[in-house]
């Protein structure tokens, strides 16, 4: 982290609240972080942790109705929060692009894949029909699609899941965005295909000098592919820091619990997992204090009544939200 590098993305006290028939639902609450050029940051959390809503709020893709967004999101100097759709359209695709979770549903099923890529080129960059097609085929080759000229005319239904995700990536990269948000880009893909896609994203990031936000529920995906990591629980950042520090010196009991409950290949078989009791809280009915307190074995009265703020730990850039943090040098049983 050299001090002179620019912050490409600055998220400050960002909250997203949905108005539902059953009350207000705070999907994302007071999230702040920054991202430098060429950096990859990971966001991990279970379902309902707010990671997907966070990604969409950063993009500014949320619908306008029944939703309240507060705080600020600056991407390359552009304020996303409060911007109108036409304003955002100018920066979507060129400043920031997104790769979605399910390649089965994120491509238009009745449009040839080539057309879905060159549509962006023609609408956004004003390219001619021929040059857009040539560029689209180039992009398909770039993301590793064999015989891309023929595949240009294929419908998404004719491709496998891994191939479709490559097409989604090609579409996202069409206007050379500076920031790529990847929301669970490999969930639902087989392990060997997952490895191919993650390698592809890593390669492209270096080659095209992008910053990447990698959102996942799988600690394995972020462990070796991100420099910094955010752990989310119930819509809040509960721990943030360099990836290595989080794995080795996590202070928040939830992070520990998440690591302990994932089975590992390196463990001998029949290793008893340390499961967290209960399940993630109902966002419509959050406890007053720490959201994790009802499931936490270290919880005290303070945890139940007062929300812990993000507190710096000993390593630079490492903070956690906990009243009773784990002692500094503990490593969990994993290593």
């Amino acid at each position, binding site marked *: 982290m050299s001090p002179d590098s620019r912050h490409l993305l600055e998220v400050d006290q960002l909250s997203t609240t949905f108005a539902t028939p059953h009350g207000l639902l705070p999907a994302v609450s007071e999230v702040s972080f920054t991202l430098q050029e060429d950096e990859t940051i990971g966001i991990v959390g279970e379902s309902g942790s707010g990671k997907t809503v966070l990604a969409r709020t950063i993009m500014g893709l949320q619908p306008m109705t029944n939703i309240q967004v507060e705080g600020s999101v600056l991407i390359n100097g552009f304020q996303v929060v409060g911007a109108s759709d036409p304003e955002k*359209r100018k920066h*979507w695709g*060129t400043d920031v692009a*997104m790769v*979605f979770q399910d390649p089965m549903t994120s*491509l*238009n099923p*009745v449009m040839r894949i080539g057309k879905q890529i060159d549509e962006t080129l023609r609408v956004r960059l004003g390219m001619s029909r021929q040059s857009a097609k040539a560029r689209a085929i180039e992009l398909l080759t770039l993301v590793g699609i064999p015989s891309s000229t023929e595949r240009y005319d294929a419908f998404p239904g004719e491709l496998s899941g891994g191939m479709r995700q490559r097409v*989604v990536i090609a579409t996202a990269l069409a*206007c050379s965005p500076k920031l790529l948000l990847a929301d669970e880009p490999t969930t639902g893909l087989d392990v060997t295909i997952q490895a191919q896609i993650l390698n592809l994203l890593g390669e492209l990031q270096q080659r095209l000098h992008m910053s990447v936000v990698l959102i996942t529920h799988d600690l394995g995906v972020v462990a070796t592919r991100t420099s910094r990591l955010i752990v989310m629980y119930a819509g809040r950042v509960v721990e943030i820091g360099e990836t290595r520090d989080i794995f080795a010196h996590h202070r928040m009991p939830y992070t520990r619990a998440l690591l302990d409950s994932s089975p590992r290949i390196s463990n001998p078989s029949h290793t008893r997992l340390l499961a967290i009791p209960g399940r993630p809280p109902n966002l419509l009915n959050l406890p007053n204090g720490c959201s994790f307190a009802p499931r936490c074995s270290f919880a005290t009265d303070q945890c139940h009544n007062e929300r812990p703020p993000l507190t710096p730990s000993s390593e630079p850039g490492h903070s956690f939200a906990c009243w009773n943090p784990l002692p500094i040098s503990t490593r969990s049983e994993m290593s």
Partner: protein
Amino acid sequence: MIKYVARRVALLIGISFVISIGSFYLIHLLPGDPAVFILGTNDSPANRAILFKQLGLDRSIVTQYLIWIGHVLHGNLGISFISHNSVVSTIKAALPIDLEMIFLSQIVAFASAVPLAMRSARKPDGWLDRVLGAGSFTLLSVPPFIIIVLLVLFVSIKLGVANTGPASFVPLSQNFLVNLESLVLPSFTLSVGSFVVYYRVLRSDLIATLQEEFITMARSKGISARRIMWRHAFRPSSVALLGTAGVNIGGLLASGFVVQYLLAIPGLGYTLISAIDTSDYLLVQGIVLVVSVGVVFINFVFDFIINIVDPRISRE
């Protein structure tokens, strides 16, 4: 794709075969000797001989069918013993009126349903959507024979608009403008039913499509809302619309019958009802056959269009 079309054509032929058997068998539903009914008041030995030769009424039922279908395939549906006209020429004279009515009504229905459904879908539960929702739901419960009677009552009788009332029909070949005038109320009546169905089907499919991930993906590329609606949302949402339209054509013919009956417009419906009233059974049989096969064929064409619109269907 070719395989799919071949399968559909085979099915079309099969269905037409079933329809031909059904239409053929109709005259045997008549209680007693069909010849008595078909000849009506013209029951003379000479006519009887002609009829027996034409239909082979003294042969086995299978032979009768083969004789009959042989005539049909040569474009001969027999000669009515009531009106002494060939059935085919009567149908040829009436059919264009139905087609014109359906054509006009469908233009109105699509031209109003598509843009309104799009506006509704853009803001579900907005004021426009609520008004159209309640309005279309109410219209769903008003049968066409009530619509046309009320239109005639208020427009032709109370307001006295010319050329719209009963028996004011003028053929297209005679006077184009008056012809159009005389078809305004009938076509409008037909278009109301179609509009309601098309609007509701397209609106709900558009709303579902607009929530799909690929629409969010298209937005994230920086494409305008208008382009997303037309290029990305409309096509995948139009499958049910086209399917409904195909099925609706059959219903339109029936609504057309009612409208023609009231206004004495000599289309197929009016001809059919008059034929039933005068017990002109050969004419009824001919109209049933032609209309049924026609409706099935239109359905087939719509199926084919759906396939082009959504390549997923033939791939299954």
